[in-house]
Structure formats: C-alpha cells, structure tokens
C-alpha cells in the first residue's frame, strides 16, 4: 500500500506491505538506521522514536498506521550542533557499545520534556530502555544534565 510518512521534517512516500513495521520501514526502506532492532517485540527500547512528540516503540508500530510526524535520533541534531541531550550522553560517557543509545536518547528527551529531575524519577522513566553494557549510572547523570541544559537552551531563545 502507498503511504506517506513525515520523518525528521521530510515527507516520504513509499509502498509497503500492511505488515511492515515503522522500524523496518525506516531502516530498510528509508535508510534511517538510527533506531535499532534489539528485540522486535517492544521489550528493549532500542527502536524508540517520537511520534507526534510522544515516545513510541517503532517495532510495535505498523508503518501504515502512522499519521503524525516522526522524529528519530537523527532528527535531534544538525551537522553543526548536537542536541543538548546528545552532548550530555557523550560527555557523561552514558554509553558503551552504543546500540541502545538512539533509543535511550529519545526516551531521555521525553524525560526532560516532562521535567523529570530527581534520579529516582529518571531511573523509573528510563527503565523501558535496556542497556546490556549497563551504563545506567551515567545515563541517569546524562539525563539530569541534558535536561537542565535543555532548559537553559530554551530560556535563551
């Protein structure tokens, strides 16, 4: 079936079978490979994207059902400038192998949008994103820092 997806500000038209997930459409049809396939059944969070500004598991979302704009980790930054949360993840070494990182960062941005600042709130909110390297302590530090930096960035606008 023919569908249109707005991905990171660009509208893409494609012909997919009804059973194709948003994750596979992004990765295999559109070359948007930031979102990762860690389990393909909504258990790891590596495929997390934003749909209409809310976090969603792209492996559990059929591409044909998506009507709102999709943002992936690629859509957060420009070639010149990292998103504050991306910079915080790099600075706090909140990653090792990096495979879960795109999903972690999309959830982290959502945590910041909700104003979560306490470590326990952040731990709870981020618990849908597995990290087998177990960078959890530095992820918490990065989310706190990235959120406050995001706040500061907003304040200067």
């Amino acid at each position, binding site marked *: 079936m023919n569908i249109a997806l707005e991905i990171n500000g660009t509208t893409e038209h494609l012909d997919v079978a009804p059973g194709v997930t948003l994750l596979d459409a992004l*990765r295999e049809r559109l070359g948007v*490979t930031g979102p990762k396939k860690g389990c393909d059944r909504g*258990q790891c969070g590596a495929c997390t994207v934003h749909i209409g500004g809310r976090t969603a598991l792209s492996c559990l979302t059929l591409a044909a059902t998506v009507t709102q704009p999709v943002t992936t*980790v690629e859509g957060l930054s420009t070639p010149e400038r990292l998103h504050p949360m991306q910079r915080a993840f790099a600075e706090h*070494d909140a*990653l090792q192998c*990096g495979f879960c990182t795109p999903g972690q960062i999309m959830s982290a941005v959502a945590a910041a949008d909700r104003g979560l600042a306490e470590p326990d709130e952040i731990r709870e909110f981020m618990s849908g994103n597995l990290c087998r390297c177990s960078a959890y302590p530095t992820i918490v530090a990065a989310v706190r820092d990235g959120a406050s930096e995001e706040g500061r960035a907003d304040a200067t606008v």
Partner: protein
Amino acid sequence: MTARPDAPLKVTGRATYALDNVVEGAAHGYLVLSTVARGELASMDVEAVRAAPGVLAVYTPFEPLPLHPVNSALLGRMWLPLQDKDVRYHGQPIGFVVAETFEQARDAAALADVAYHERPAATSFSDGLTSAVDAQPAASEAPPSLTVLADGVASIEDALEASDVTIDATYETAAQNHAAMEPHSALAVWSGGELTVYAGNQAPHLVASDLASAVDVPVDAVHVENPVVGGAFGGKATSMPALLASAAAVALDRPVKAALTREQVFTATANRPATRQRIALGARRDGGLVAVRHDSWSTTTREIGFVEPTSHGTSREWYTTENLAISQKAVPLDVPPATFMRAPGEAPGSFALESAVDELAEAIGMDPVALRLRNNSTAPPGEDLQWSSKHLDECFEIGAARFGWADRTPGGRRDGDWLVGMGTATAMFPGLRFPATVGVTLHDDGTADVATAGADPGTGLLGVLRIVGAESLDVPQDRVVPRLGDSRLPPGGLSGGSTATASAGSATMVAASTVIEQLVALASSEEGPLRGHDVGYAHGTVYALDAPERDPMTFGDVLRATGRSTLSATGTTAPGEETTKHSFGSWGAQFCEVRVHRLTREVRVSRLLGVFDAGRIINPRTARGQLAGGMIWGVSAALHEGIEFDDDGRMSRRDLADYLLPVNADIPDVDVQFVEHPDTLLSDLGARGLGEIGIVGVAAAVANAVHNATGIRVRRLPIRIEDLLEDG
C-alpha cells in the same frame, strides 16, 4: 580523561552497525530452528516455503548451502549449520530462507513442515550429574584435577579433618546468555571474487579467516568490517548469520542480509553453562587456611566442547593455602553449545568461593575482610612465580573505609520495613596479553593513524589507541586518528580475555618508536631537510641537536620537505619471558549493601563499591564504564538472569521480557575506585585488563549481604524471593 572517539557517531545515530549498511539489491535471510531437543530430521517439506512470495532460495540439510570445514583460531573445529541431519538441541539452526524482503523471508520460513525422528533428550543438570565425566577446563592446559599437599599430608580429606574449623557446601549458578543489545547479524556482499562481510564481532581478522575457510575462497579475498559492535561479552567470536549470509551471497551472487531474532539469539549462538560447585574449606582458629577443596561441574553439549573453569579460575590461585585440591567435570546434555562469557570461570566460580569464605568467616567469628587479608596470596599455591604487582590489601583497606564497613554488624540492621545488610568479596582476573600488531602512519598534514584490526564493542579500545598513540608520538590527542574494526588492518586488538589494552597498547608503543626512528633517519638523510645534522625528536617535532638555532620541524613538515605523503611502521608484541618470571592478575575488593523487604522479601541493591588494582589506567572514564558495567552484570547474575529448560528440552525465557536483565530502576549509583600501580613487568604500558574483573565477586558480595541482612544463606543463583521466605 578522554571521550570516546566514536561517541559523536553513537549519540547521533550515525554509527554504522552491521545491518545499518544499506546496499542496493540486498536479499534477506531468515533462520529456521529445530523444535525438538534431540533426534534426527526425518524430512523437511519446503514446497510452500519455496512458493511463497519473494522467496529466492531455501537451504536445509536435505539441500544444503555448501560450507567447508573451519578450524577457528578462537574456537577450534566449528560446527557448521545445515550440513547434517542430527538435532542436538531445541533451537538449532536447520534451515535458511532467503527472500527479497525481511517480511517475505520471515513469513515463508514459518511455512516449513519439519518431521523428526525424536529421541529422549537430557536437559536436566541435576539428573545428568550421574553421567558426569572428567573434563579439560576451557582455555587451560591444566588437567581436570590438581592437588597440592603440604609435606607429610596424605590427602585433602586428611588436611580438612585436621583443620580447627571446616565448612563444606554446594553452590549452583544458572546458565546465562550474553544478550548483547545487537543480535548477531551480517550483511555479506560478493563481488568480483571478493567477499565483504559487515558483522559485529570481536576480531575481524580471525572471523575473515574462518569465513574464507567456510566459503572456500582465499583469505585475502575476504574483508570483514566491524567499525562498531553492539556488545559482545565473549559471544561474538563467531556469527551464524555471517556464515549463512556469506555462503548464500556467493551461491546467489547478490548481497544477503541476515540477523537472528532475539529469541534465536538464545539458542543459535552459545551460552555460559550452568555450574555446580562443592567447596570445603579448612582453617585454623586464627583464620589461616589449611585446606581448600573445590570440585566443579559444568553443563556441556554431548561433544563436551567448552567447560566453564570455575575452580581452575578461582581456588587454583586466589588464596594462600597449605593444601589444595580442585577438580573439573562436564555434564553432557542436549542443550545449546556453551562458550566464553564475561569472566568465564571467575564469575560463577567466585560466587562459590567467595560465599564459602564468608561462611568460614562466620564459622570462625572473624571479619570477612580480615579473613581474606589473612590469606592473601603472594603466588598461586604450589607455584614459585610471585604476583608481579598485587595490591589487594590496599583495595580492601580503601574500600572498607569508603564503604563504612566498620558499621557492619553480624546480624545486619533494620530500617523500617527493610532489613539492611553488607557483603564483600574478592575479585580477580588474570593479566594476559595476546600477540598483536599495530600500524602507525604519519601523514603530511600532521595527523597520525593508529590502526589495528580489532574491535571496540564498547570497551573503549578506540580511545586507548588514541591516548597511547598520542603519548608515544608525543603529540596532542586530537592529532591522532584511531582505527579499528577492519580485517585488512594489522592483525591485533582481539576483544577477549581482557587483553586488548595491554596487547594493542604495547604494540602501539613499539610501532610509534619505530616510525619515529624512521622519521629521524629520513630528516637527516641525503634527501632530508636536516641532512648532515644529528637529529632528535620531541613534542612531535624533529630538531637538529647540533644546531639549536634552527626551528624544530613537525613530522608533517619533514614529510612535505621530502615529498612524501605518509610514513608508516608496524609494531608487534607478544607474551614473552615475563610469563616465566611472574604470575599476573588484576585484583579488586567488592562491597555491596542490600535491602530486603521484611514482608515481601524483595531484594534491592542499594550501594555498590568496587576498588580495583588493574595496573595503570589509560582512560579513567571508559575504565569506570567497563568496571561499573561488569559490577552490574554481577548484580544481574545474583538477582536476575537465568536460563531454564522445560521438560521437553525447550529453553524457556527466550526473550527480554522473560530472561530478566536489570533495568535502570534496579541499579543504584555505582562507586568505582582504582589503586593505580603500573604493572611494567607485564608490559611497558603498565596496564592490565579490566573488562572482566568488574563482574567477579559481585554475586557473592550480594549473597553475603543478603545473608547479613536476613540470616539466610542462598547458595543458588539467581537468588529468588522464594529463597528468602522464612520457612522456605
């Protein structure tokens, strides 16, 4: 402190993992797995598969994909899929379907109609104990059993009997899966007689050699790339999808992508086996160890293969004792193969040994830290080779002070509804090196490449190459470009055995000093800008020793002046005579606080501290990540992870909802400290490995803390709520 060179790529989604490579016309492969645990394939009706939309090829043992024998440098003789009709375990690869799209391959694979001649399968460890056989522990030259007795002592039993205090207990640990976030996957491209394979792995030069054998092409026609790897932990020495995709790409003459599903990862790769360990300790009243006996059983396949070396990996070396007896047995079962997983041997072995030491401390009435220091070894028992650099006492002293160990009371303490306890354990991992070659190339733009085949599956090796390269060339780090993850680079940097930093780091030092010698010779040569002068090198510049008024020249200046764009050298290092002079190991002291709910018996780890003696720390930032990650793996082994089999031999818990891993909310802040004593007896670099030691001892520290909190001694991992019920 240096950020990971690949962090900007990883946080923006631009890091290219195997399946992120997009090539025109790639077909997609999907595996079919066995649904019985033992028997023979009677038939595979794949007509419906073949007729399904988009299907290009169907391979089964009845119509196999040609694969040739592989003698892997890392794994020995490899089992190859689809070459025979025997079914050895539930979830064994028995088919490979290639179609135009992923969805078509997956949907078609579900149509295979498989019939078996099924035979009764043995998958129960406890039932299998009666068929246990002596077995060579993995990665060891040692015989299965080994005994060291003091003069005049006839047997380990006599030594135990003569001890003032003894404890004797049996411990069990569950089988585990590496569960790297990136499932095993590959893209294979066959073009012009060359095979290029993008696949996450731990040593691309070794994987290239294996694949060349498997598809029967010259090794220099195979190119394996793994610039980033989505976690490995010992589980990516080989890759089933890479084997199948490569052979299919050659057979079909088009690119083939293949990945294991998360469920398939649990059986179509290999796991850490389950272990059972009996430990008897005998000591004098003052805590001095008289006798250590450690008997180990590991589950294996019927062909035996990998045997988890729990007693050889721990009791063999850790403590001073007058008498020692260890043994290793295999329990052959119809289960998926076993392999190396982070701290193979040491991780489950330390749960048993360090729990037993805690039990002994209680029996004697001695502080567990004091008991460990009382028996601190200067060399492995019965051996002359002393530890090159061991500061375990310092680790415990710093750790005890930092953790507030003095506040621990024998019965724990109460905080509202929570029972709070503290536990400790020793950690140890051998200090090893493997042969490694590193290339250093100076460029006329003033930058330098430091390159080795290797892999950085999150370990931080890429940053280590940059730091050691910059230090050895005496230039700022931003002038050094580290390169890894390409089989065509000089062979080295295997990510395994906690060896990469010590191996590739010392080879980098050799390569850098060689290229500097060449540069100096070039500068003063007939064609050089400083011909006729005595030339020195410092701060990345060449200067005339006998003409101080002349400006120093950067290596870029020298290259441009001589009309060259690059100057390269390689350096190779390997274990040498140091291994005949000393024993080598990293050491650590683990501390854990747990809170056990009085009523629900939920266990929460509330504090973790590890103090490590791993020689020189090259990059504290990534070293902390490795060690904290390892410690969290220890919590996971203690409280979360465990493979189990149903009665029909099917592995239960084959996904990330049922196979429990810690999530962020399970983990407290983790405190990692170093005592930095460079170990220059191991290598000029002074660093020992630290990728594995973080996990070692943690599960025992958790169990010991649970005992301190509740008075209940749990000798089986993972610890479950039902283990902590008062009448349980």
